[in-house]
C-alpha cells in the first residue's frame, strides 16, 4: 500500500476512535442535511428564498412574538417573522459564510505565508510587517466602512476570469514539467488578461448584499492567522534535506513548493481552517446582532436574534419571548460546536508526536 494512503487510513482510524470527533462529524452532517433539504423543510419564499416570510394575518392582530404553534413550529418573532424559516435557511447562510470566508482567507494566507517564508529576507520582513498591521486592525471598523462605503455592485469581466482559470491550470502544469518556454507562455497570458480588461468592457455587475460586504470585510482581516501558521511550517521544512535534494535536481521553485513543501505543511492549516469556520460564523452572527451584518429580514441566525435586542432594557419581556433568541442561538452554538469538535479532533489526530506510536 502506498505510504500516503496508509497514513490517511491511519488518520481515519484515529478519527473513528475519537468519540468527540464523531460527534462533531454527526452534527455537521446533520446541518448539511438541513441545508440541502431546506427547500423541502421550509418551502422557499417566492420573492426571495433568503427573505424571511412574515405572517401578515397575525401581524394585523399583534406585532408581538408568538410562541411555537402548529402554524409556526418555532414561533415567530417581532413583526411576525417566522423563526423556523429563519433557522432552516439560516443554515445555508451559515455554511456560505463559513466556507467562503475561510476558503478565500486560506488561499490568501497560504500564498502570502509561503512566499514570505520561502524567499525570506526583505520580502519576508515586509510581508510580515504588513500582516502585523492587518492583525492590529479592528474588524468592526472595516465591516462598518465597507458596508456603507462599498458600491452595491462589483464589476466582473468574464474574459478575465476565464484567463485566470487558464493561467492557474498552466501553473499546475509548470509544477510538474518545469520548462522556460512554459513559464514564458504563462507570463504572456497574464499580460494578455490584464490588457483584455481594458479592451473588453465590463461584462456584468455582481450585486453585493450587505452580508456579502461583511463577509469581504471579515476575509480581509482574517487571512493573517493562516499566513503566520503556514510561514512557521514552511520555515521549518524549508531547510530539510529533501528540499535541498529537489533543488539540486533542478526543480523550479514553484514545483518544489507544490510537490514537496505544501504536502508537509498544510495539515496545521486544515486544523486552523476547521476551527475558523466556527469562529467566522460567530463573528458574522455578532455583527448581524449589532445591526451591521445581514439586512433586516435576511435569513441569518444572528440577524433574527437581533430582533430580540430591544427587549434587553425590559428583561421581563425578554423572558416572556425567550424562544425568539434561544432557538436560533441553539442553532448557532451547535453549528459552531460541530466544527470545533472536528477541528479539535483533527488537532489530536494530526499531532506529530502521536503519529503512529
Amino acid at each position, binding site marked *: 500500500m502506498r505510504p500516503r494512503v496508509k497514513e490517511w487510513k491511519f488518520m481515519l482510524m484515529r478519527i473513528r476512535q475519537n468519540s*468527540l470527533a464523531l460527534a462533531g462529524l454527526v452534527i455537521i452532517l446533520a446541518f448539511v442535511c438541513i441545508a440541502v433539504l431546506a427547500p423541502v423543510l421550509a418551502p422557499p419564499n417566492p420573492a426571495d428564498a433568503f427573505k424571511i416570510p412574515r405572517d401578515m394575518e397575525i401581524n394585523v392582530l399583534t406585532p408581538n412574538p408568538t410562541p411555537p404553534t402548529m402554524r409556526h413550529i418555532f414561533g415567530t418573532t417581532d413583526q411576525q417573522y417566522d423563526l423556523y424559516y429563519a433557522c432552516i435557511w439560516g443554515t445555508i447562510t451559515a455554511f456560505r459564510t463559513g466556507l467562503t470566508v475561510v476558503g478565500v482567507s486560506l488561499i490568501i494566507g497560504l500564498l502570502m505565508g509561503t512566499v514570505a517564508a520561502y524567499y525570506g529576507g526583505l520580502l519576508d520582513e515586509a510581508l510580515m*510587517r*504588513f500582516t*502585523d*498591521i*492587518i*492583525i*492590529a*486592525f*479592528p*474588524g*468592526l*471598523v*472595516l*465591516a*462598518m*466602512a*465597507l458596508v*456603507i*462605503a*462599498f458600491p452595491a455592485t462589483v464589476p466582473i469581466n468574464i474574459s478575465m476570469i476565464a484567463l485566470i482559470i487558464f493561467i492557474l491550470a498552466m501553473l499546475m502544469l509548470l509544477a510538474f514539467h518545469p520548462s522556460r518556454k512554459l513559464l514564458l507562455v504563462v507570463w504572456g497570458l497574464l499580460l494578455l488578461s490584464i490588457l483584455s480588461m481594458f479592451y473588453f468592457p465590463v461584462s456584468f455587475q455582481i450585486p453585493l448584499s450587505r452580508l456579502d460586504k461583511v463577509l469581504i470585510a471579515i476575509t480581509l482581516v482574517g487571512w493573517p492567522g493562516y499566513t503566520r501558521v503556514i510561514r512557521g511550517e514552511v520555515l521549518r521544512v524549508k531547510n530539510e534535506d529533501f528540499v535541498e535534494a529537489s533543488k539540486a535536481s533542478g526543480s523550479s521553485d514553484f514545483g518544489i513548493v507544490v510537490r514537496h513543501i505544501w504536502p508537509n505543511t498544510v495539515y496545521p492549516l486544515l486544523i486552523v481552517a476547521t476551527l475558523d469556520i*466556527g469562529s467566522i460564523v*460567530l463573528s458574522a*452572527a*455578532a455583527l448581524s*446582532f*449589532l*445591526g*451591521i451584518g445581514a439586512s433586516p429580514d435576511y435569513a441569518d441566525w*444572528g440577524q433574527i*436574534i437581533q430582533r*430580540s*435586542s430591544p427587549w*434587553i*432594557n425590559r*428583561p*421581563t*419581556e*425578554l*423572558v*416572556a419571548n*425567550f424562544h425568539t*433568541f*434561544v432557538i436560533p*442561538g441553539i442553532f*448557532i*452554538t*451547535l453549528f*459552531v*460546536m460541530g466544527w*470545533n*469538535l472536528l477541528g*479539535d479532533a483533527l488537532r489530536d489526530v494530526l499531532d506529530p*508526536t502521536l503519529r503512529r506510536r
Partner: protein
Amino acid sequence: MTSLTAYIVRRLLLLVLVVLGVTVLIFAITMLFPAEIRAYMYIRNVEQARPEAIPRVIQIYGLNDPFYVQYGRWLGNLLQGNLGWSYTSSQSVVEAISSRWVYTFQIVMFAAPIIIFVGIYLGVQSAIHRNGLIDHICRVLSIIGWSLPSFWLGLILISVFSGQLRWVSIGPLSQEGINHVANTALFTRYTGVSVFDGILNAITRADISQLGITLDALAHVVLPVIVIVTIDVALLIRVMRSSMLEALNKQYITTAKAKGLSKNVVIYKHARRNALIPVATLSGMLVAGLLGGLVITETVFAYGGLGAWAARAALSTDITAVLGYAILTAVIFVIANLIVDILYAYIDPRIRLD
C-alpha cells in the same frame, strides 16, 4: 547596552512603524466614503445641519484634497490630541474615550486575571491527569464555551437573572447607585471605577454604607465577566494543556525524575515553567483582544463603556468616533504585543541572544 535593552529598543521602533501603518490603513478606509458623508464629521449638531451648507464644509476642511494632504492634516491633529468630534455622543472623541474607559476597565480588571489564572490552572491539571475526569470535563466545557455566541450567552443570563429572578438590572450600577454616584454631596468620583470609589468614599467619609456602591458595582459586573470568561478561558485551557503536555514529554523531565525529585517538583518547577512560555504570549494577546470582544458584551449589558460607544458609533456612521476607537484599539494591541514580547524575552533566556 544589555541584550535585553537592545531587544526592547528594536521592538519599540517596529511598534512605531506598525502603528503608523495602521493609521494609514484606517485613514484610507475612511477615504472610501464620499466627501459629502465625511463632511458630517465636522458638524456638531447633525440634526440641524442644512444640506446646502455641506459644499462649504467640504471646502473649508479640504475634503477633496489629495490623500496624503488630508492624511498629513489628520495625523497632525492626532498628534496634538485632537481626534475630532463624535456626534453620537455629543462630545469630542477624546472626552468620549476618557469618560468611558473606566467602565471597560472595570470589566477587564476582573475578567483578565480570572481568565489567566483559571485557564492556566485548569490547563495544567488537564495535562497532568491526561484523559482523566478533569481533562474530559475541561475539554467538553471548553468546546461548549468556545462555541457560544457571546451575545446569546448574555441574553440568556439577562433573561434569567434580570428578567426572571430580578436579582440585578442591566448596566454598571442600579438606578439608586447611579443617583448616589451622581450626587457630589454624597459621593466623590475619585477614580471613576465604582468598585474602588465605593471603598475610597467609605474611608474618606468614614461611612461604611458607601461600600454599598462597591457591592452594587460588583453585582453588576458579575454577568458581563461571566460571559467574557466563559468564552475566552476555553482557548487558554487548550493552549496551556497542549503546551504542558509537550513540556512533560521533553528529555529534561526524564533528567529531573532521574535526580530523585518528587513528582510535584518535576511538574510544577520544571515542566510548568517551560510550558508557561508560549502561554504568556497568548495571554497577553488575549487580554488585548478582550477590548474587541467587549464591544458586543457591553452593548448587550448596556454597560456604557468604550465597546458600547463604538458599536453605536458604527451603526450611526459616526466616522470620527469609529476612527478614534480604531486608533485606540490598534495602539493598545501593538503595545500589548510589545509587552508580551519583552516578557517572553525575560522569561525565556534563549530568546535574548536573538
